[in-house]
């Protein structure tokens, strides 16, 4: 009985929230970062029922013959509102949608672009097919009714590293990995804007559910080189503000370096996972948005491997 009562009160609260969020308007405003290059900058928060999952950066490039869309956000609604916002900037057709990697906040808006080519790296395509529904379920749990009607539309084109003409615009695709098994960086040659996907986080703690930190650090080195090339104008991180320099790369690296060094030392010192979870963040990261929750998640993802390393080979 008690549980029914709790469930009833819970659904009342959910209803109240739904009324407050009536219309489910993400309020997407394109921010021009270069001529013909726009970014929708999300909040540096975790998914919840207030932000509806608008915690991610997406963008688009208006080429001479058509538009290239980079990532589609966390829900059907986000994708639809994004497409409407794009149409207010340009009436050109969408030439190509790119999903930078297989995380749900970057592809669950694909439904709104089901009539145009959607491309991703081969491993990202496989990841979306294999895990997309489970990811979507999790976002329904965290973002609630903002997600309603959202279903997985997997990419239908495989992209490869190298130059690609799309919408009459020359894009340089750089295939990296580390945040996930396949992270695609898109460089718009005409504007010098680098879309780094989730290899770069700016003023928000990085997420690591599918990370290979060693590879991620190598990918950051490649990205750092891109930001030093002549013609570079802006870095679009997967989360957080757009910058005119490579600062988010250094911040992402600093977090990953601290995280791995401290977890490795903890495992060598004989700490149990609960001991590691209880440790406070160092002052350098204490004020970083979502640092405490991402630290806890990362301990879960990464600590077991450091334990194996510290305990040595089996006998």
């Amino acid at each position, binding site marked *: 009985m*008690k549980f029914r009562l709790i469930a009833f009160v819970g659904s009342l609260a959910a209803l109240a929230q739904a009324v407050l969020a009536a219309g489910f308007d993400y309020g997407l405003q394109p921010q021009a970062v270069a001529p013909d290059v726009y970014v929708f900058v999300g909040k540096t928060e975790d998914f919840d029922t207030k932000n509806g999952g608008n915690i991610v950066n997406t963008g688009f490039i208006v080429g001479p013959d058509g538009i290239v869309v980079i990532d589609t956000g966390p829900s059907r609604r986000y994708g639809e509102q994004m497409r409407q916002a794009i149409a207010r900037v340009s009436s050109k057709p969408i030439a190509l949608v790119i999903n930078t990697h297989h995380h749900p906040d970057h592809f669950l808006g694909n439904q709104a672009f089901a009539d145009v080519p959607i491309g991703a790296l081969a491993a990202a395509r496989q990841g979306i097919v294999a895990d997309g529904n489970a990811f979507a379920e999790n976002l329904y749990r965290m973002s609630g009714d903002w997600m309603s009607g959202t279903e997985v539309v997997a990419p239908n084109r495989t992209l490869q590293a190298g130059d690609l003409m799309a919408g009459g615009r020359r894009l340089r695709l750089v295939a990296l990995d580390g945040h996930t098994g396949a992270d695609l960086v898109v460089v718009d040659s005409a504007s010098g804007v680098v879309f780094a996907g989730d290899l770069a986080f700016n003023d928000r703690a990085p997420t690591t559910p599918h990370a290979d930190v060693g590879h991620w650090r190598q990918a950051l080195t490649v990205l750092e080189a891109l930001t030093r090339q002549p013609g570079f104008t802006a870095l679009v991180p997967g989360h957080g503000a757009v910058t005119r320099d490579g600062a988010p790369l250094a911040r992402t690296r600093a977090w990953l370096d601290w995280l791995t060094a401290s977890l490795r030392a903890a495992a060598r*010192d004989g700490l149990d*996972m609960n001991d590691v979870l209880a440790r406070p963040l160092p002052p350098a990261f204490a004020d970083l948005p979502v640092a405490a929750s991402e630290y806890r998640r990362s*301990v879960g993802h990464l600590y077991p491997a450091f334990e194996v390393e510290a305990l*040595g080979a*089996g006998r």
Partner: protein
Amino acid sequence: MKYPLTIVAIALAALMPPAEAAALQEVGDPLASARWEDMRRQFLNGQSVVFDPRVKVVAPSTAENPMQVPVTVDASGLPGVQEVVVFADFNPIVEVLRFFPQASPAYLGFRIKLQQSSPVRAAVRTADGVWHVGGSWVNTVGGGCTAPSAAAASPEWQKRLNEVSGRQWTEGPNAGRLRLRIVHPMDTGLVAGTPAFFLEEITLRDETGLALMRVRPAEPVAENPIFTLLRSGQGAIEASGRDNNGNTFTARIAP
């Protein structure tokens, strides 16, 4: 409604600091779980039970990975601990493990699989026959007991089954600590086509053959179990055990 404490609780309270004594209670589950009475009947039927703050169950309030939820049970503040039963009220397989701290403190760290958000509890039986209960709620996305083990995706584990790695810490803040990892899929039997296959007995002895602790894991212990213990004494430790299919292991962990 407030019930008076029974004679057992009054006797216990007399031996405890006032703040802890105030937290002793015999009725009214502090975790307010609808399953508590079932748990009490299943594990502690007809016996004296107190909720006791000296039984510490440390677990994250929100667990990122329902297949690897860290749990640390520390009842080392209780004298005369004979047996500790760990269970999760809302798991499809409720009993997680039992351990018998023989010549070591009543302290054990391990990881478990949770099927949904649940209290995780430890009931600690002391020499006088009283069960002392502590616990904490863990929120999780769930599915930990019915998701296939990582081993199910690769035959590699068969070559390494029951492989033990471990280490003792003899100096620094964690001196006296032992950590032990055993390669085992710990299949719950709740995944279609995969029968239950889990470690069910682990014994730790020192060099003289003295039993330090006996652990009886059940299906909800996480894949490739990793245990953290505190030991008294010195020297190498021998870990031995077997799974429910009769596969055995023995390993020596030098200090």
